[in-house]
């Protein structure tokens, strides 16, 4: 089972065409999971970044002055919550009379 401990989802907002091009290059990097693709200047891009690539990606973004924020801090935490919610829902589901 794949786990996503420490994986972050970054929301990146490109400010100009140069940053757009850089983000398009990032799309081609292995293990980058693009949740919301590169569209245009000022439009958010969401990328899931594996934990082991976080520092290099953040340095890359900072070096090019690309604005970004963390949309999901730790993906696995949310997935665990989702799993618990589903299990809880299944437990409480009553069979039809």
């Amino acid at each position, binding site marked *: *089972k*794949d786990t*996503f401990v420490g994986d972050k*989802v970054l*929301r990146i907002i490109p400010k100009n065409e140069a940053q757009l091009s850089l983000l398009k290059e990032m799309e081609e990097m*292995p293990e980058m*999971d*693009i*949740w*919301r*693709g*590169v*569209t245009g200047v000022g439009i958010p891009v*969401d990328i*899931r970044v594996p934990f082991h690539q976080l520092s290099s990606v953040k340095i890359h973004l900072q070096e090019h002055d690309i604005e970004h924020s963390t*949309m*999901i801090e730790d*993906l696995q935490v*949310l*997935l665990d919550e*989702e799993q618990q*919610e*589903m299990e809880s*829902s*299944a437990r409480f*589901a*009553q069979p*039809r009379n």
Partner: protein
Amino acid sequence: TDSFDYANYHTLDEVGTQFGNAPRLKPLSQTQIYRFQDMLVAENPSLVSKIVIGQSYQGRALNVLKVSKAPILRPIVFSLFSTGGTNRPAIWIDTGIHSREWVTQASGTWFAKKIVTDYGRDPALTAILDKMDIFLEIVTNPDGFYYTHNSNRMWRKTRKPTPGSSCVGVDPNRNWDAGFGEPGASSSPCSETYRGPTAHSETEVKSIVDFVKAHGNIKAFLSIHSYSQMLLYPYGYTSSPAKDQADLHNLAKKAVSELASLYGTYYTYGSVINTIYQASGITIDWTYKQGIKYSYTFELRDTGRYGFILPANQILPTARETWLALMAIMNHTFQNPY
């Protein structure tokens, strides 16, 4: 189906929630969402029937619910040779071709119930169904859907191995014969947007292709994804405007306005290439090429910034607001025959 919990996510197989390799299932095995579909058919025998348009790579049924007031024969096992004669004009809706988009399959389940509930009550839907059929494929990529529940929540592709590569699966929204292989898809099997070796190489895609061609009278094709809050029309592979661009654009504007009227959810709209990115081999470019004028793809809501793990409490609002946009497109299709 009244007691089905529409406000929560459901697996394909509630029993099989152990992690591990997906078994090769027997065709037509009865699992959670499949069971819902059978129940809906059983409860509405004069309105809903189930068509099996094919099997996934791992042997799961590719079920399509047919909602029709025309006389039906049940059980119907679809074959290319069973659709003799002229079919009624129809609307196609598919949900969840990218398996990890769980809010999409959940919305599709709600749509199915909404259609049978509103028939005879909502004059607009009733008028549509008195003249047209609706086809609804709720789990368009069942192997991927199973895999998201059991092995990798973020999986979006099919599960067919690629010979000579350790990477598995094809992006089923890059596998259609419309600009196939052009920029906007990857030739690398390890990419999330791998287009596959040839157009229609994936049975999940080919089964729809065969069905659409054999039917021959589908007038609107709505392929539903999540999450970017967009309503998109052809083309994805070229920046040339579609012949019907003005009409498609005006209808998209109306549909997103209807959608926003419920909760204020903001959608952008336009052609795929201009609104999101260049994408080749996509579903709606192929359907448009087949002459289906009202070909649209939705990207459902992102409220809460959770992406593909949209909390379950977002399912019903998402489905309800999307339904308004679907009705706008279906009604326009009904009132503007071509």
